[in-house]
Structure formats: C-alpha cells, structure tokens
C-alpha cells in the first residue's frame, strides 16, 4: 500500500534533513522551481484530486487557482498548524516526524501562488513541536532549500513559524489570519475572502499541514499517480464526479479502540477495516456503540451506520456527517451519551470566541442544559429547548463554530434519544461511564 506521508516516520531520524534527503527529499521542490511554471504546479495538484485535509475538503488546486496572479500586492501562503479539533492529532505527527515534507510542500505551494513569504501558524501548546519545526527550518535554510534564492532561480521563499497561544477558533482561517496579524482571534466577515483580502489585506491562501505535506509526493510522482489512490467515479457528461475521494488520509484513531494512533490509509476503505484491522477493534472486547467520524464537530454515527460506511467524502455526506479532520473516535457500549455530550459542549462553550451573540451565549447555554440533564436535574422541556437553541445558532453566525456545536448535539439527541429522555429525571456520573 502506498504511503504518501508516513512511509518513513518510524525511522528514528525521520525528522532530520539528512534522512529526508536520503529518501529523495527536496527533489520535488527542485523540480517545481526549475522545471515547472506556477500554472504547471497548480495543474498537477488539480489533477491529483487532492482535497483540503483540514476539514472542509475543498479542492486544493482550485483554492490555489483563486489567488489572483495579476495583483500587485504581496501574496501569502499560510499553513494552518493550529490542530485543535478534538480527536485530531495527525498534523502533530507530521511536524514531529516528517517536518521537511511540510516545509518542502510550503516551498512548492509558495511558488504555485507566487508567495515570497509563508507563515506556519502553529498552535501555542505545541511547544515541543515548534522546536522540531524550527530545527528543521534552520537545517533547510542552511542547505538552501528554504530562502531567498532557491535552486539558482534568483527567487525564493522565506518561511516564518508563528506560534499561537491557545485558542481553538484560530483554526478557522480568517481567525487565524487575525491572530497572525496580532489581533484577537475573531473570524472575519466574508466577503471579502482571503484569496483576495487575507493577511494584511493581501491575497492569502491557507492550507492545512497534511494537505501541504502531500504536495511534494504529488509533484514527484505526478497528480495522476496520487489520483489513482482512493476512489474516483466520474460523473455523467458535464456533471461533477459521483465520487471524488482520491489519495490517502491520515486517520486519527482514539477513544475506546485497542490500538489508538495515526494511520495513513487510502480513501475508500471501510470504517470496519479501519477500526478493526488498523485499530484492533473496540478495546476490552466491548461492543461498538458509536463512532465520531471526523473530529468532535462532526455528527456522530451509530455502530450500525459506521460499520456500513466507507471512508469517502461522499459516504460521509450520505450519512449526513463529515470526514472533517480525520479524527475518528470509537465509543464503546458502556458510554453514557449524555455525559459525552456534556464534555463535547464544554469544549465549544470554552472555545467560542464570543463575537457573535448566538454562539457566545448559545454554546454555554447548551452546555448548562446538558450538564443539568447529566446530573439528573433535567426538566421536561429541556430536550425541546436544546433543539430550538440549535436552530437559533446554526448558520446565524460569522463562522461555523456554532454549527460545530449544534450539528453533533442534534445527532446525539436524535440517535440516542432514549438516553436523553431517561436523564430528564436521573443522574449520570461526571465522567463518561
């Protein structure tokens, strides 16, 4: 099976330039800078079918194509390494074990969009990972793979590592840009969009770590080779493809799974294969109750739904959930879903930036109601209030954080309704069991 991102991560020196060079590192960057035009690079990435791995799944080549080529302003490539979606820890692995792939991807991506400076916005809690990345950057600069003159072209790219300071919302790209500019991490009103008015009002492209780290492989092996991994079914004449889930993804397995960890898998394998073959099945020999497919913001799947699903954007959409950031959490049959939802909602209440009134007030209100249910102090009308609040929050704010709280909430309530109804009058433990 082809490993695009993690082929070498088990090597003890995988984070060092020497090792990265020994497996062909920075040759894709050389190829991109010396033999390809920016349009060639974008065409190759379009051909690969790569979709953004941060959560939204937007085609990367198309996103790069939005950056205006005729703008006199500087252009910026910004890498979103603010990995904070509960259940997700893949970008961390790449930064720790394959940092040069990230840097090489930046070097190529910068050429594609005409950026002469790139920022890697890394979450503040990644103190250790910042050091690894800084060391890798220093190595790459010393070796001439990052800097003002790349491969004798007289042009190049400067990479700046920018450390955040603790705010989930900065994973939203316009909040990230505000934070990069030294502001509170409030998401921005759109329009205007970052592609034309991003960092410092200049054209800006924000890419996820996994996305950008995939780029060197695509340039080395060709977009078509990447596109042969995973699943692709063309649509009828003039229609979009029926299935467009190409390449590999880093899936983060956690929760009640025997072998948690990050697994690089080709898209299109089944949830069953991922959980049982890769993850070793549900821990302690217990039964599967539910699966959170792509980070805590994605609607939950029942065991039955999950076990009948495959890892594609389309199958997730069929089940009215999302692939999200690849943070798959396994939930066993001894878990109280009311307590679990309390934990989930505490997160969103804590992380709401507080800008929009529905999210600022609604996330904490939801948390308090569900906490009340958990503690057996629920009121008969609480379940309806939860539903109403979700309606009043979702789609009525600047950014999707409110929806990230309401979509899973509604899915828990719908799929595990009897548990919630039972809690209107009886307490659950403070933990999740």
């Amino acid at each position: 099976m082809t490993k695009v991102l993690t082929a070498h991560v088990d090597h003890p020196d995988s984070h060092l330039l020497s090792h990265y060079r020994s497996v062909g590192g920075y040759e894709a960057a050389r190829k991109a800078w010396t033999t390809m035009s920016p349009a060639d690079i974008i065409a190759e990435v379009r051909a690969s079918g790569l979709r953004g791995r941060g959560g939204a799944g937007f085609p990367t080549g198309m996103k790069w194509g939005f950056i205006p080529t005729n703008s006199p302003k500087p252009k910026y490539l910004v890498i979103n390494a603010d990995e904070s979606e509960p259940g997700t820890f893949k970008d961390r692995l790449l930064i720790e074990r394959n940092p040069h792939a990230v840097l090489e991807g930046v070097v190529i991506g910068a050429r594609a969009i005409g950026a002469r400076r790139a920022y890697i916005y890394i979450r503040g809690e990644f103190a250790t990972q910042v050091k690894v990345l800084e060391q890798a950057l220093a190595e790459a600069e010393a070796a001439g793979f990052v800097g003002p003159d790349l491969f004798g072209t007289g042009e190049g790219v400067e990479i700046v590592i920018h450390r955040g300071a603790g705010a989930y919302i900065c994973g939203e790209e316009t909040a990230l840009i505000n934070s990069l500019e030294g502001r509170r991490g409030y998401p921005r009103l759109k329009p205007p969009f970052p592609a034309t008015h991003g960092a410092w009002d200049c054209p800006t492209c924000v890419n996820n770590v996994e996305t950008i780290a995939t780029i060197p492989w695509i340039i080395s092996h060709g977009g078509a080779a990447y596109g042969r991994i995973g699943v692709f079914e063309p649509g009828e004449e003039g229609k979009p493809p029926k299935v467009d889930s190409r390449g590999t993804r880093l899936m983060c397995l956690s929760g009640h799974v025997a072998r948690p960890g990050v697994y690089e898998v080709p898209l299109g394998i089944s949830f069953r294969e991922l959980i049982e073959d890769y993850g070793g099945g549900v821990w302690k020999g217990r039964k599967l109750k539910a699966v959170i497919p792509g980070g805590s913001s994605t609607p939950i799947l029942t065991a039955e739904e999950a076990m009948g699903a495959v890892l594609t954007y389309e199958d997730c959409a069929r089940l009215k959930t999302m692939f999200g950031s690849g943070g798959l959490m396994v939930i066993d049959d001894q878990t109280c879903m009311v307590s679990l939802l309390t934990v989930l909602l505490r997160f969103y209440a804590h992380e709401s930036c507080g800008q929009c009134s529905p999210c600022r007030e609604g996330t904490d209100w939801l948390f308090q109601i569900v906490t009340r249910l958990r503690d057996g102090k629920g009121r008969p009308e609480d379940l309806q209030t939860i539903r109403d609040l979700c309606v009043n929050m979702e789609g009525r704010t600047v950014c999707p954080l409110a929806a990230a709280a309401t979509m899973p909430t509604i899915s828990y309530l719908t799929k595990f309704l009897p548990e919630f109804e039972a809690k209107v009058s009886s307490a659950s433990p403070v933990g999740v069991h």
Partner: protein
Amino acid sequence: MALVTINGQTLEVPDGTNVIQAAALAGFDIPHYCYHPGLPIDGNCRMCLVEVEGARGPQIACNTILKATRNKEGVEVPAAVVHTETDAVRQMRQGVMEFLLLNHPIDCPVCDQAGECGLQDYYMEHGKYNHRSVVPKVEKLKAQPIGPNVILDQERCILCSRCVRFTRDVTKTHELVIAGRGDKSRIEVFPGTQLDNDYATNVVDLCPVGALTSRDFRFKKRVWFLQTAETICTGCSRGCNVHLDHEGGKAYRYRPRQNESVNQWWMCDRGRFTYKAVNEGRQRDARVGSETVPFARATQELRQFLTSGKVGFVVGGQASLEDIAIAKWLAAALGARLWGLDWTEPGKEDDFLMKADLTPNRRGLALLGLDADEAAFRAELPGLSALITLGVTLPEDLVHPRIAALVTHAAAVPPGAALVLPVAVHAERQAAYVNCDGIIQHVQAAFEPSGDALPASSLLALQAAGLGHPLPFDRDGVWKRLEAELGVMA
C-alpha cells in the same frame, strides 16, 4: 446606483448602500445593535439577519452591500432580493433576542437606560415572551466609573463593540477593549488609564443598552419625562447639531444629532456639558445699576438709552443672526454706531470637531457686515452717549458710564453696567447661527424663557416699534427681510 428589492418593492440606491439603509428607504426597519453608520461594520450582534434570495442561509443586512449588478444580457437587475418581514426572519430575531438577554441582568427598574434601551425597544417587537432560561447568569462588574464622564456596567453589555470601535477608529485613543473570550468577554479599560478623551461621552450615545451611562445625567430624570428640541451646541463655532432634552424649563442633556456636514454623529465633551449653562449662572432679573427693577421699568430705561443722542451698539458672537439683524436695522434707524466684536478667549482646537473660537456666531457678525474695527470702537467709545451690548462680554478695561447690557448670564454683565436686561438663550427661542464653515443653522425653542426675559431680537424690535421704527418681531419676519435686503437665505 444599484437596484434592490425589499419585500417586493424595488428601489434604486447608491452603490455601497447596505441593506439596513436600503430597507429604511423602502420604509422597513431592520433591527440592529452593532451596526452604526459612523463606525466600521462588525456584524457581531446578528440582529439584522434577513433572507436574501439565492444566498446560502440568512444574511446580516449590515454587511450585505449593494452594488450595480447586471445579468448576462447586460440588463440591470436587483443586486439583492431581500425579505425582512417573513416568519423565518421574525423567528431569527426572536432567537437572537433570547441569546442577548440570556446573561443580561434585566435590572431595568434601576437602569438609567430604561426608556431608551435597545433591548427594551426590540423586545416589544421581537421578544419571545416565554422566558425559559434557568441557568445562572455570568456575573461581571456593575456600575464602575471608567473615566470622568462614563459609568460601565459589564453585565448589561451585549458586546456590540460600538464603544470599542469608536475609541479605535474615530478618536484613535484605544482606551476601551474587549477582554476575555466567549461569554466571559467584557469591556475593560487598562489599569492606570481611563476613558478620558475629548469625545468620551459619545460612547454613551452609541451604547444601545445600559452598559455605558453618563455620570452627569444618570438618575437625574427618567427619560420618558423628557421632551426634546432640535438645537445646536453653542459651546464653540462648530455648532454641533444636538438634541436638547428638557423638562419643566430645565435642560438635562445634549445628545449629538446627525449632520453629515457639521458633526456627523458626534460632539465633544466640552460642548456637551455646556447645556448646563442653559440652567446655571443665568441673569434672571432686570437691574438699574445694582438695583433689581421690574422688567417694564428696565425697558423704559432702555428707551432713554436709545434716545440719548450718540448711541453705540456692540454685538458679540453669542448673539443670534436675528439679534444681529435687528440690532443692525435699529442702529441704522437711530443713526447709531454698530460694531461686531467679541473678546472671548480662545479654547482648545483639534482636527476633528473642537474649534478654538468658543462663540457660536462670530461668522454671523461678518455675514451681516458688522464693523469689526476694534480700534475705532475703542476710540469712539468715550464719545458715546450710551453703549448697548448684546451677546458679548466686554473686556474689563472697556468702561463707560452708560452701558445697557442685554445678557443671558450674570457673568456677562459688565462691571458698573448702568442697565441690565435679561434675554433668552438659544434653548429658549428660535434662532439661527452661522458656524465656522459658514453654514447657517436654525434652532428650535425647547421652552419659554423664564420670567420676563425675551429673545434680544424681540426686545429690540419692541423698542424700535416704540420709537416709531417698526421692525419684524418674530423669526419669520426677520428672515423675510433678511432675504429681501441682504440676500441671506435661511
């Protein structure tokens, strides 16, 4: 120009108009808190959500900016087709109101904003009337002075950020900030600093709720007892347009009134508190020498002065355009000398609204062509049989045994004045003033002058009539003649 369709009605608006403004033109009020035409759009309150055909989900009207749009055939089509009065929109507004009130203390009985509060007003129309929150409210600081003129109640705040944007983008003084995150967010000032700039109290006007209140005005009067007159601030030559809120012949406060070409939406604190001069330090009684006399006796005295021979008038920058006009016509009828002079000490000037010239109508003196030759005035003063002063405070070195002073305030009475007549201030009359940019501004009377006082123009017109020189007594008459004689248009 752009086309827009609001609730089925298509209208043309200038490019760059937003849907709140466009809807207002079409006669529909879209409720909003954070949006203010004088501040950058922030879009945080979500109260102005509307339905826009073809858009993904509800849109905030404040950030839906209209610009000319053409279809494929090149035909101009509406930039947006908007619905503001549907059940869905009403439901959204109810939802937002519920969130805004979740952590609001609902302390309306002890809140000074009551009666002019955006939460109260919109709740009437958009409330759920079904209180269902039993969660404890987030506690924050209440009634904290944050500067000489403003009190902050963090709990009442809906975090619309108008005040923060005002200090960031208008005054650029950056005293106010939102600290914290989520529902713990609150407005703060930094330790060791205060909200103490020349325009600080504008944040009280901007605040749509009871979070920022005026230290000067709070608890002086319930606002529903107040009446409002449209007038101007007479604190300097800018002439900022204001609402004068008053009751029982007493002025309670100024609030800036929008005028794009004078003061936009703002006024300075120096001017704002000059409303107090309507109430305080007024000259209430008529005097002959130091003796209080009946008003009728004083007017008889004035007639003596006016007929004493070589009479002079000096009119200052406090006098209204009508006062100046009547003085001018009367002086001409009497063959008297007339000067337009003012000795008011200059005050602070900035590059925003504050002007160094602290008189409201110095430009009016020039407009009506009054003689501004101070040297001539000083030279001729000793030879005058009587000096009539109006809207001016004479410097101390200028003395004359027979000065008749028409004054609004006791402090303007020249030492040793032989005759003092109280006259109305701008709040007590219809009048016009010419501001620093030459703009003629008319003011409404808030209330009648107290006692026997009259507008100076009326007082002098009565005198003129008694002397056989009929002059217009009221504002309309004055302006008819001004327009005819001088080409000065209202």
